[in-house]
């Protein structure tokens, strides 16, 4: 019988797919970012800021960052599942990782919309 645990991976296929979809989103954004960076006239402060000035660039960057956080969650959860044998400790680490990544999402919005 399969021993199901609260702190195991419940949704293997869904997470497997999410990891790949977020990976493709991030790869596409990386290309987009490089193209806009190369197209930028200079590398001083004002042109660096100008890069993130358009609303679509802010939104694209936010989609990239949120994809990254979701991708990172699946990744670190897999690492915790592999190496942390204690269920209690694993649960604590899950909660900390989720809280941290949610905090990062808020921070990302603040950074982007400060431009």
């Amino acid at each position, binding site marked *: 019988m399969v021993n199901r645990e609260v702190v195991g991976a419940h949704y293997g296929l869904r997470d497997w797919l999410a990891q*790949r979809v977020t*990976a*493709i989103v*991030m*790869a596409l954004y*990386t290309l987009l970012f490089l193209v806009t960076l190369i197209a930028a006239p200079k590398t001083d*402060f004002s042109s*660096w*800021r100008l890069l*993130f000035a358009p609303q679509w660039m802010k939104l694209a960057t936010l989609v990239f960052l949120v994809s990254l956080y979701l991708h*990172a969650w699946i*990744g*670190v959860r897999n*690492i915790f599942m592999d190496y942390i044998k204690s269920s209690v400790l694993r649960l604590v680490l899950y909660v900390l990782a989720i809280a*941290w990544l949610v905090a*990062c999402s808020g*921070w*990302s919005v*603040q*950074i982007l919309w*400060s*431009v």
Partner: protein
Amino acid sequence: MDKARPMHLNLLQIRLPLPGVISIMHRVSGAALFLALPLLLWWLQQSLLSSDTFTAFEAMFSQWFVKLLMIGLLWGYLHHLCAGIRHLVLDLDVGTELATARLGSWLVLGISLTLTVAAGALLW
């Protein structure tokens, strides 16, 4: 499953094949990037917030060990990206034979290192 099985987990003696090396590097680079998130977000914030913080960021970035750290993280990102693309290709059942899997691993290592050296030369 209680049958006693021979175990050989001496990490210093196991000769991991190249795809295995790429695989553990994928995990290590991912973990490193996750741990570096606060630093990377802070850098992004410093560089975007105001011309004062941008200047402070530039001053910090002019130190060699900060540059080295950034290039190291860039290598982590590029390796993770290339190894991830290899994974997606393998998911499509392309290149799963031993020879092509090895070739793909060499490509991941070679391309990510080449891009890192090129970007590192630009940043230095």
